[in-house]
């Protein structure tokens, strides 16, 4: 199946000479959730803004559902929804009117039933006649989402959707993202919160200094780049690693009370069983064993660190 969004050699240079994007290539598959990770100023928002028509690219091309974003902008913008990072809303407009306005701008005839459903889904319906300036930050965020959903886009960009949002709203939002995906919407989200990407994304893209460092299936990425670590808690502390165990590369921790062993989770042999038998042969009594996997955050920090 052809990708729904296809980005080829996309560049953006500002008049100041700053290069926000340095030749980005990216394919986004229909129906997936792609999380774009990257530090501030990495180029995430610039890339989204170009696809949506807010920023003019310096070079390269983008197609959405087969149409070029510049020559066929009517077709592409009609199916793209954008929830911007900043809470930009008209202070004096009501919730209902601003959502209906978005629908109209995208060329759709009025559909009060749909808008009512969207507002109810986002727990905004009882605020429909409230002026936007009277809403809290979390409510404004919901309004921005309602606006983007008002014309039923097929591709939805969420630029830092959970920045400054409390835990319960964040959970609501993740559920909403799941529902949208179930209805076939392709979702691209940028985030600083790595656990967010870890929780909901199918694929992870890492972007830094205007370049995509990698795009990979989340599970594959974590298996490939994630390290596993086994910690063996000993009944009696050791002062040095016994010679019998030195070939495993284990290290002592917690004042000799723990042996730490790092292994490759995706490897054919993890070496765990032989290590355990070596332990018992060395006459060491084991009190407890635990394993843990490095998080996406560790992977991310490592990747972005390398790019520096």
């Amino acid at each position, binding site marked *: 199946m052809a990708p729904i969004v296809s980005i080829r050699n996309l560049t953006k240079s500002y008049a100041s000479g700053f290069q926000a994007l340095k030749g980005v290539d990216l394919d986004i598959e229909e129906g997936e959730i792609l999380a774009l990770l990257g530090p501030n100023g990495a180029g995430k928002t610039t890339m989204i803004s170009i696809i*949506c028509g*807010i920023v*003019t690219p310096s070079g390269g091309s983008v197609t959405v559902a087969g149409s070029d974003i510049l020559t066929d902008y009517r077709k592409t*913008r009609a199916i793209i929804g954008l929830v911007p990072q900043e809470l930009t809303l008209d202070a004096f*407009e009501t919730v209902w009117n601003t959502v209906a306005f978005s629908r*109209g*701008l995208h*060329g759709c005839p009025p559909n009060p039933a749909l808008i009512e459903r969207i507002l109810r889904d986002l727990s905004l319906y009882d605020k429909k006649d409230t002026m936007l300036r009277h809403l809290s930050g979390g409510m404004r965020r919901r309004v921005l989402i309602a606006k983007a959903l008002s014309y039923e886009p097929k591709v939805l960009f969420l630029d830092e959707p959970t920045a400054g949002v409390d835990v319960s709203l964040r959970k609501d939002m993740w559920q909403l993202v799941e529902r949208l995906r179930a209805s076939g919407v392709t979702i691209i989200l940028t985030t600083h919160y790595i656990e967010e990407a870890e929780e909901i994304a199918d694929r992870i893209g890492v972007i830094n200094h205007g370049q995509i460092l990698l795009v990979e299936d989340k599970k594959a990425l974590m298996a490939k780049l994630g390290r596993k670590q086994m910690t063996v808690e000993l009944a009696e502390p050791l002062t040095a690693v016994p010679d019998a165990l030195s070939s495993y590369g284990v290290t002592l921790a917690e004042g000799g009370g723990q042996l730490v062993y790092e292994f490759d989770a995706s490897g054919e042999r993890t070496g765990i069983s032989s290590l355990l038998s070596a332990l018992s042969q060395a006459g060491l009594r084991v009190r407890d064993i635990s394993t843990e996997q490095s998080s996406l955050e560790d992977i991310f920090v490592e990747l972005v660190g390398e790019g520096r």
Partner: protein
Amino acid sequence: MNIEAIKSIYAFEMARTRRTLLQSIVSPVITTSLYFIVFGAAIGSRMQEIQGVSYGAFIAPGLIMLTLLNQCIGNGSFGIYFPKFTGTIYEILSSPISTLEIVIGYVGAAATKGLIVGTIILVTASLFVDISIRHPFMMVLFFVLTAVSFSLFGFMIGIWAKDFEQLNLFPMLIIPPLVFLGGSFYSIDMLPPFWQAVSHFNPVLYLVSGFRWSFYEIADVSPVVSLVTVLGFLAVCLTITAWIFKTGYKLKN
């Protein structure tokens, strides 16, 4: 053509007018009534008729033009400046709408509002002085063309302005002298020859003169020249607006 989008922008702008009824309708009516009391009744009663028209009636077309220019520039500029200022412009830029449709929405609403206020001023004026309209068709034509071209002019100011200071520069500092020195309150025949010549460089003179001609058939310049001037101004504004959207000037990076 994205008709729904045009309707949405137009309705949004007209709703803003309804929310600020006092400022947008009542205030210009009061201001103009004061002009008629002071210039029409108090001072006007001691002045000679100008080419057979009483002074109060003579200044009516100029006052309507003064209000129309201010309203159109004010609404046209604010309508597009405010989304730029608050950041909600992102939505306009990311919508499937063409330049032309954006302009029709914003400028159409600004011109409509200007015409509503202008009409109210005309009605108010007729309560104070005797007004006759000899060429109703030409009067409406001047009225509408001026409203549209100055709303477009305002729209450009709104895009150009980077702060409220610049936004207010034209309506507060440039338009009043042009209107006052453009024969709104006198015929330029009354000026010394040098200032008469200078006045011919003032575009507002042509608007006021043409508009007044459609009322009383008296004019400082030929009505044809007036009409050509308005059309020329409209063409210049349209060209600049097209350029703004083509290049993204001050709208897009």
